[in-house]
Every structure is written in structure tokens, then in C-alpha cells.
């Protein structure tokens, strides 16, 4: 595939070693080591405290009941109650700490990931699907946080419990302990047999459900096309296919998991039965208290063993997620900002391309040794056929993509020496497709200059001709809109973009077909408004319409990654070259109409 989308085949072996991942996870937890130690201490204490009631029970039965000693019964009963209450307090505190650790590290990872995301160049977004990115930041992080929070602590807990139980059991009776322990290999064997298939099926499930999600997502976005071509049936059919696959793997996973727990219980029962038989043949040695104690511990004991055998799969799942986060965090943006806080000083706003080469995908070269100059405080128009590379050119000035070789200079300063945010704070960029956010109308208009007063926004809205429409809305400037909303027609959205840039008031303005959907009259008005705004600014305008281009001080005609003609409108007409032939057609048509 040309753009090399990474298909998420989760059951392929992991690419990153566990050690690296552990180190990565460790670094996240490190700042919280105090809390973690605190939680662990609490857990350790509570684990041991939790083993006490059985001992008290044994005493009640053996010494209290059999020995007919009421005071022991009373004392131990009260002790048991105290133990339960202490254990509750301990485990509650521990859990609270753990959840705090988990959720705070989650918050931190999410923030880092999002910051990283916004730092990427456009080429990253050309390659990665938004659904995939979304699922890394939400699902993967959540599953890791659950693991960090609960499982990692649980495993310590369970280990301690296992050791504690073994010690107590040993101290009570060696033979019975050995019989119980003899069941462990059975559990391990079951674990080994089931872990592989269980993991595979769980991963297949994850993959299938994410297919369902992206299928829904894409079809919601494309619903207009579906309606337009009346292909609802076809689309629904292909969704049903994906959905069915998900259902089938869910069912398979379910039946395997449903098998697991009865099997484990059965093994536990076999252990109990063995003990019963042994005791049955050695009746005189054992007291009721010992038996009650063993039976209770046995349950806990097998419970711990079961946890350990299944731990591997939750560990695998968490590590698969951790790996995806790791990869996400390790993928360096194509451009690393120097982070030197250097300020770009704009005097004239002259932009110079110095033998710039660029390609999107290292296969098709868009620009090769391209050099040109955009005069400061001038309006330069770029014209050329679709796909000629006009948009690419302005995207390079804003460093949405990084150039392969050469330099781009603004007033003699290489733009790659500055942070991108610094560079862009001097540039107003109106992109080809204007976009609205899920915000209020006001917030949309002042996107880019959050600190600006409402009065000023209204003033500019009046200037670009949006005020009339907005004031007719039920909540005026405070109307909430969705990004898909029809409230603004395409042309009106372009006016919103203008509004944003005018409010930002930068010395350099880039307009990529920014008036293409405007009618002549609005365009005329906008140009009048802009002639004030553009004063003393460097502007680069991409447009097809003569009416837009004519006002420019200078015109570049681009074709095949080169400037093939340049000059003023007049001089280009005189040249009778590409520009002339491009626009002869337009005029021709007008004249035909007028005949």
C-alpha cells in the first residue's frame, strides 16, 4: 500500500521487548513511588490480617467448643469482628491510593499523548486513522491504567497470600499441606493449555470490535454519500458482515471463558476430596478446627493459584496496550522544534524559497530545487491547474510538512530555526476547506485569539458580512454548533475563516482558495474589507477567479512544480503564455454569454 497504513493485527508477536515496556511503565510510575510503597505496605498488612479469622475460628472450635471454654469463644468472636473492621479500613485506604495512582498516571499519559499528537506534522495524519489514534488515547490507556492500578497490586497481594497460607498450613499440618500443594501442577497445566488460545481469541475479539467501530464511524461520516447514491442496502450488508464476525468471535471467546471457571472449581474439589480421603483414613489425628481451617484456606489457596494462572493473559493484554502507547510516544514528529524560545522578527515579511525540494511520500516529487521570492508587504497570487502544487507551497511556509532539502526564509531567517508555534503566530492561514468546531458561534469566530472581546468579534463579523445571519439565530453569538451543522453554508464558513484571521491580525496571510465558494458580491465586499486589512501585510493568495487574482501585486503561475511565468496581470497578458491561455477561456465564455 502506498501510504502504508499499519493494519492492527494484534496476534502478531510483539515488536518491542518486555524489558523496554516495563521500563517505560516504570518511568510513568516512578514519580508516584511513595504512594505505591504506601499502598503496598497497606496491602501486605491487610493480606496477613485477612488470614487471621480462620485461626480464630479454629480456636473457637477446638478450644472453645470442644474444650467447653466460653471465655475463649467470646474473646475470639470479638477479635474476629475487630479483624474484619481493620481489614476493611486497610483495604479501603489501599484501594483509594491505588485508584489515585492509576487515574493520575492515566491523566498524565493522556496529556502527554495528546500534546504529542498535536505536535505531529500533517504527514502523520495522512497515515494514521483518527479512530485508531482515538482508541490508543482512550482504550489502550484505560486498559493499562486498570492493569497498573489493580492487577499489579493484586499480584503482590496474591503472592503474599499464597506464601502466608502455605506457612500457616505448614505450621498446622505438613501432610495436608503437601496434598493441597500437589494440585498446583494441575492448575499450571490448565493455565499453559488455555493461555495461548485464550489470548488469541481475546485479541481477535478486540480486533473485530474495533473493525465494527471504525465501520460505523466511517459510515456515519459518509452517510450523505450513501443517501445520495441510495446504497443503504449495500452498506448495511457489508456492516452486517463485520458485525457477524465480531459476534462469532465473541461467542467463541465466551464459550472458552465459560469453560475455564468450572474446570478450576473442579480441580479445587479434587484437592478437597483428596484431603477428605486422607483424613478419613487418619481420623484420630485431626480436629474439627483444623479441618475448618484447612477447608477455608484451601479455597483461598486455589483462588490465588487461579488468579496467577490467568494473570498471564491480563498481563499480555495490558502489555499489548502498553506497546501501542509506547509506539505512539516513541514516534517522533517529522519536525522537532528547537525549543529555544527564539523570536522570529518580521520587518517586511519577505518570504524566500531557496532551492526547496519536497515530496509527500518519497515517491512522487512535488518540488525539485524550487526557488522563488514573495515580496514583503505585497499581495502575491498563485495560479495553476488543480494538482499543480499550490496548496503544498503554502503548507510548506507554515511547516505543516517538512521540506527535504533547501531552505525557506522569512526576512532572511530560516524558518526551521524557530518553534513552529512561534512561526505560525505570525501567519494567518485560511485553508481550502474551512472547518467549524463543536463550540459556540462566538468561540468559533475568535478561534485563534481566545482573549479577544466580544465587541471586537462582532465588529469583524459585521465587516465580513456574517453579523446579519448570526443575529438571527435563536441564541445569537452563543448558539452552539456541531462540526457537521448546516447553520453556515460553505461560503459562510469561509467568511468565518476570514473572521478568525482578521482577529488574529498577523503580518503574513496565506489564503488557499479562500473565496472559492463566495458569490461575486460577497467576494467583492470581502476584497474591499481586506484591502484595509492587507495594508502593510504580506499576502499569498491562491485562487482561480480572475477577479480575485487581478488585485495582486504579483502573480506566479505554477506548473509541474515550477514557476513557469510571473509578473503583473498586465505583463502576463502581454506574454501570451499559459496565464493568458488559462484566462482567455474564462473571458471567452463570458463573452459568449453576453452575445
Amino acid at each position, binding site marked *: 500500500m502506498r501510504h502504508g497504513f499499519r493494519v492492527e493485527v494484534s496476534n502478531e508477536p510483539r515488536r518491542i521487548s518486555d524489558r523496554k515496556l516495563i521500563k517505560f511503565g516504570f518511568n510513568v510510575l516512578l514519580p508516584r513511588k511513595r504512594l505505591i510503597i504506601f499502598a503496598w505496605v497497606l496491602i501486605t498488612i491487610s493480606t496477613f490480617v485477612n488470614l487471621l479469622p480462620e485461626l480464630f475460628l479454629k480456636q473457637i472450635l477446638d478450644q472453645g467448643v470442644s474444650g467447653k471454654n466460653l471465655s475463649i469463644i467470646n474473646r475470639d468472636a470479638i477479635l474476629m469482628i475487630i479483624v474484619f473492621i481493620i481489614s476493611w479500613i486497610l483495604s479501603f485506604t489501599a484501594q483509594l491510593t491505588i485508584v489515585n495512582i492509576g487515574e493520575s498516571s492515566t491523566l498524565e499519559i493522556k496529556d502527554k499523548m495528546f500534546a504529542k499528537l498535536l505536535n505531529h506534522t500533517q504527514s502523520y495524519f495522512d497515515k494514521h486513522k483518527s479512530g485508531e489514534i482515538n482508541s490508543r488515547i482512550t482504550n489502550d490507556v484505560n486498559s493499562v491504567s486498570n492493569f497498573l492500578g489493580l492487577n499489579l497490586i493484586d499480584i503482590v497481594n496474591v503472592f503474599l497470600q499464597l506464601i502466608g497460607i502455605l506457612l500457616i498450613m505448614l505450621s498446622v499440618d505438613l501432610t495436608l499441606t503437601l496434598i493441597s500443594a500437589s494440585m498446583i501442577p494441575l492448575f499450571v497445566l490448565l493455565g499453559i493449555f488455555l493461555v495461548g488460545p485464550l489470548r488469541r481469541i481475546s485479541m481477535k475479539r478486540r480486533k473485530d470490535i474495533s473493525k465494527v467501530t471504525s465501520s460505523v464511524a*466511517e459510515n456515519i461520516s459518509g452517510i450523505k454519500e450513501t443517501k445520495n447514491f441510495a446504497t443503504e442496502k449495500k452498506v448495511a450488508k457489508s456492516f452486517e458482515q463485520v458485525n457477524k464476525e465480531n459476534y462469532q468471535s465473541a461467542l467463541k471467546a465466551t464459550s472458552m471463558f465459560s469453560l475455564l471457571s468450572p474446570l478450576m472449581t473442579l480441580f479445587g474439589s479434587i484437592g478437597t476430596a483428596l484431603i477428605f480421603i486422607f483424613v478419613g483414613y487418619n481420623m484420630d489425628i485431626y480436629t474439627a478446627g483444623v479441618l475448618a481451617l484447612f477447608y477455608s484456606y484451601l479455597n483461598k489457596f486455589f483462588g490465588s493459584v487461579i488468579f496467577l494462572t490467568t494473570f498471564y493473559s491480563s498481563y499480555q493484554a495490558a502489555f499489548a496496550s502498553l506497546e501501542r502507547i509506547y509506539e505512539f510516544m516513541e514516534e517522533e514528529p517529522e519536525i522537532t522544534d528547537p525549543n529555544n524560545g527564539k523570536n522570529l522578527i518580521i520587518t517586511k515579511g519577505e518570504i524566500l524559497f531557496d532551492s526547496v525540494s519536497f515530496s509527500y511520500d518519497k515517491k512522487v516529487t512535488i518540488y525539485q530545487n524550487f526557488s522563488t521570492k514573495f515580496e514583503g508587504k505585497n499581495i502575491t497570487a498563485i495560479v495553476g491547474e488543480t494538482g499543480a502544487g499550490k496548496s503544498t507551497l503554502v503548507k510548506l511556509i507554515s511547516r505543516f510538512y517538512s521540506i527535504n532539502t533547501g531552505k525557506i526564509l522569512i526576512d532572511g531567517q530560516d524558518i526551521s530555526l524557530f518553534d513552529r508555534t512561534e512561526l505560525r503566530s505570525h501567519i494567518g492561514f485560511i485553508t481550502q476547506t474551512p*472547518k467549524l468546531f*463543536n463550540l459556540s458561534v462566538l468561540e468559533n469566530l475568535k478561534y485563534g485569539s481566545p482573549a479577544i472581546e466580544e465587541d471586537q468579534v462582532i465588529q469583524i463579523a459585521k465587516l465580513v458580512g456574517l453579523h446579519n445571519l448570526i443575529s438571527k439565530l435563536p441564541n445569537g453569538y452563543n448558539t452552539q454548533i456541531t462540526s457537521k451543522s448546516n447553520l453556515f453554508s460553505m461560503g459562510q464558513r469561509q467568511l468565518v475563516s476570514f473572521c478568525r484571521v482578521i482577529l488574529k491580525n498577523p503580518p503574513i496571510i496565506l489564503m488557499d482558495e479562500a473565496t472559492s465558494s463566495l458569490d461575486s458580491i460577497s467576494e467583492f465586499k470581502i476584497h474591499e474589507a481586506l484591502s484595509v486589512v492587507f495594508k502593510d501585510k504580506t499576502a499569498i493568495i491562491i485562487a482561480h477567479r480572475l477577479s480575485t487574482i487581478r488585485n495582486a501585486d504579483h502573480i506566479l503561475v505554477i506548473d509541474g512544480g515550477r514557476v513557469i511565468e510571473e509578473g503583473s496581470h498586465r505583463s502576463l497578458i502581454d506574454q501570451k503564455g499559459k496565464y493568458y491561455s488559462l484566462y482567455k477561456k474564462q473571458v471567452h465564455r463570458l463573452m459568449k454569454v453576453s452575445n
Partner: protein
Amino acid sequence: MFRIAKPQIKFFSVGVLSMILGVQLGLLIPVIVGWFIDSIVVNHRANELWAIVISLLGVTVLKGLFDFGNRYFNEKGGELSMYKLRNQLFQKLQSHSLTFIQSRSEGNILSRMTADLDVIKSYLSRDFRLGISAIYYYFSIGVIIYLTLPLLILFYLVLVPFLFLISWVYGRKVRPIIKERRKTLDRVSTHIQEKVANVDIVQAFTMEKYELDRFHDENKLYRDLAVKSLLIRGSTLPLATVLVSVAGVAIIWFGSVEIVTNPLTGLTIGQIVSLNLLMIQLRTPTRLFGNFISGVNSVQVSADRVFDILYSDVDIRDKENPLTQMGEIKEITYNKVTVTIKERKILSDITLKFKGETVNGILGSSGSGKTTLINLLPRFQDPQEGSILINGVNIRDYSLKTLRQNISIVNQENFLFNKSILENLLFSNQNVSMDEVVKYTKIAQIHKFISSLPEAYDTIIGERGITLSGGQQQRLSIARALLSRPKIIIFDDSTSSLDAGTELIIQEELQKLEYKVTMIIISQKISSVRYADYVCLLDQGEIIEQGNPSELLNSEGLYRKIYSLQRLDSMVVEEEVQ
């Protein structure tokens, strides 16, 4: 909510039945342990040993079978319900009008089809059944206790209401938080989706910090809610477990004292052990009972969100016995059409006629209602007043499918799927040969570009066609629309990103289409409608001028004004050409 489960009721009934049997058998195990202690350990009746061992193993095997049945059938019922529900939802979603979908954000709809379904599913196949099992546990253990020593039931009767009370308090307190958490999660996800889709704008306006802060705030809220819900959970549900444990101790204590002081009651040590084990078994259902209670509400919230899609009326739908054939287009008539959205008149009293197989133009300032006007034709939206007729038949009499198969709109912004170029082209019509595909891509002036790509028609074009230039996207969409061979084709400002030369060529090529077509061209450029047989001008939702282009030019109106604006600008060239 039970509406969802109903079709799968047989799985759920089998599941719940095996669950109850499994629970009941599980409760027998402590009794067997008690039996063992009494007869073997205390009374040394060796002859009962094998009976005990065999019943222990037998009960476990049977219990295992029922446990399997319990999980399997409940999960199967749950998964099957979700599978069916998801299909239904998807289909329903496809039949809803665009207005319905556009008024809800994409992220919102998506989370209804994923997260909300998950909530419903896990309630149906887990929390609900665990709730039932908890109730059964309470009941059955009560019976065993009563049978063992009637007096003990008093402890139990005091205990149980408290357990219900605690679960109820937990459910009530945690509900709003769960709801809030879900909303926050929704917003986070929408936030990411939106910022990824519009990252160019975020970066161009250096709003990274602003967006990061908003993101952080939402996530922090989410974290705080998580901690808060844990606080509530931790301070209620374990309390119930502690109560159960304390009751267990009380039973042990009471029983032990009884044996010592009052041996005549016949209470045995084995019975005390088994009662203790039963009380331990009661802990888990007690802990989970809270989810059953709190779940009722959150599942209802989810179900409501799902039903909003599933059961809200489709406002645009076929009438009964619709026409499924549409002949050659003779005329399209708008008859006093008025569109009002939120009390604002978008179109008022539009009356016009497009003749069949002609080229028609619509001009008008942005926001004048052009897109709304043509969206009425394939019924993406219905007018509040007036009617639209094709060949004298109201468009509401045609089936939507027929109507839309015969009408194609090329929009200003077109959605391209993250698939190959060919798959995108074939989206509108699968039954065409490669030759035909090439024929139409040539008309749309995009074939040459596609062939220049290393993988030509198999090139994957990225999410929303991101790797194509604006003009290339438009031309691809034009080819896609032509491929569906519509009788009516509408270009909604769809050549705005094309240079004049390319646009001209496409227009000329379109004249040569081998099938008959009625064209409606919305444009800002007078030059785009020069071939038109009829042009109408829209202003603030009203038709202010109409007629054929030369007529319009000779009258002193808006058309002439626009013409002169566009002509004035190019005067210099014009002189040259002359």
C-alpha cells in the same frame, strides 16, 4: 430495556435457570463439608467417607455443568441481542434523515453504537443475572439457616434489610456520577476525533495549548469522578460485606455458645462450620448486588440513547406503495415551496420549473438557500409547505430509493472513503466495467492523474481523501456521480476548486454523455452557467430573477450586476482577446 432481551428470551431463561441450579448446588458444598466434619472428624463414622467424597465430586461436576450453562447461555443471549441490535441500529441510522444525524455529533452517535451497547450488554448478561442470583442466595441461605437452628434466622432477618439498604444507597449515590462519567468520556472522545480531523486549523492558529488545556480539564474531571465513585463504592459496599462477616461471627458465636451451654439443641460443630462457609459465600453476591441496583439506572440511560435512534420516527420515508419507476425526465416543478428551520425562513414561496434534459443554473449569494433548494429534490429534507413534482408526480410518491438512484448530487465537499480509488468510484454503482470507469474518469479529467500514481486505481486515498488536492477530490466525486448514470445530476458549487480550463473541458465533455441527463448547476461563476437553458437567481431564500441567460443579461437586475462585476475584473483580458 427488556425489549432488547425479549427475542433472546430462551437463552436467557436457560441461562438463569442453570444459574439458580448452580447456586443451589454450590450451597450444598458447605453442607457436605459440615457433614464430613460431623461424621468423620467428630464421630469417626468411617463408613460414610466414600458417600461424602462421591457427593462432593458429584455436586461439583454438576455445578460445573450448570455454571457453564449459566455463563454460556447468558453471554450468548447478550451477544446475540447486541448483534441484532447493532444491525438494526445501523439500518435505522441509514434511514434517518440527514437533519437527524447532523444534529448529533459523530462521536455521540458512535458512542451510542459502541459504549452504550456495551453497558446494556454487560447488564443483560452479567449484572442482571448476578442480581437475581444474589436474591436467590439470600433466600436459600435463609432457608438453610432456618432448618439448622430456627433461632438463628433472627440474626439473618436483621441483617438482610441492611444489606438491601446499603446497596440501595450505593446505587442512588453513584448513579449521577456514572452518568456524568459517561458524558465526560464522550466529550473526551469527541474532542480527540474533532482535533484530529481539524488538526491543520488547530496548528495554524497555534491553539495547541488551548486545546491541551481543554483536554486536560475534561480528563481531570473524569479522574475526579472515578475517585469519587470509588469513595462511594468503598464506603458502602464493603460495609455490607463487613456486616455479612459480622453476622457470620455472630452465628459462630451463638452456635458455639449453644453447643457448650445447651447441648440438647442438637447443634453440631459441622453445622457451625458449614454455616460459616455459607456466610462467606454470601459475601460475593452482596458485593455485586450494588451493581445490580446502580446498573438499572445507567442501563436505562444507555437504552434511552439507543432507543432515540431506534424508535424515533423517521421523518422522511416512503409512503405506502410508492412508485418505483421514473420515466424520462420531462420536467421538474417546484410549487410554492417554503422551508422553515427553527422559525427562520430559509426558502420562501419558491416556484420554478426545470425542463427535462436541459442545463439549468442557480446563482445566488452564499447563504441564499441554494443548497437547501436542491437538497429538497432527493428528499434529504422535506419542505414545510408546497410541493415538488417530477413529471407531474409528487416526489413523495416515488420510493426514496428510486428517487435517489435517479438523482445524484456532487457536493461542495464530498466524502471519500478510506479505500482505494476504484472502490470509491464503484461506491455509486457496482455493475460497471473498468472501461466504463475509465470513460467517466476521463470526462471528469481525473484519469490522467490516477494513472500517474504508482498504484493507479488501487491507490488508497486516506481518510476523507486527505492525500488528494481539493480539485482532485472534486473531480473524483464528479466521476463517481456520473458512474451511477443518474437522470438528474446536480453540481452544487462542485467546480469551485477547479481552474477555469479544467472546468471548461469538463463542461464540454458533459455535453457528450451517452445517457440523457438533466443538469442543475449551482455556481458563483456566470461563466459556469453559460450553456444553461434556464437560470434562476436566489436571494435570501427567494427567487428574484429567472429566465434564460441572455434575457437576464438584458434586464437591469442582479444577474447583470454580477455579470458586470465578473466582467469588469477581466476587462483587460477581454480587450486583449478582442
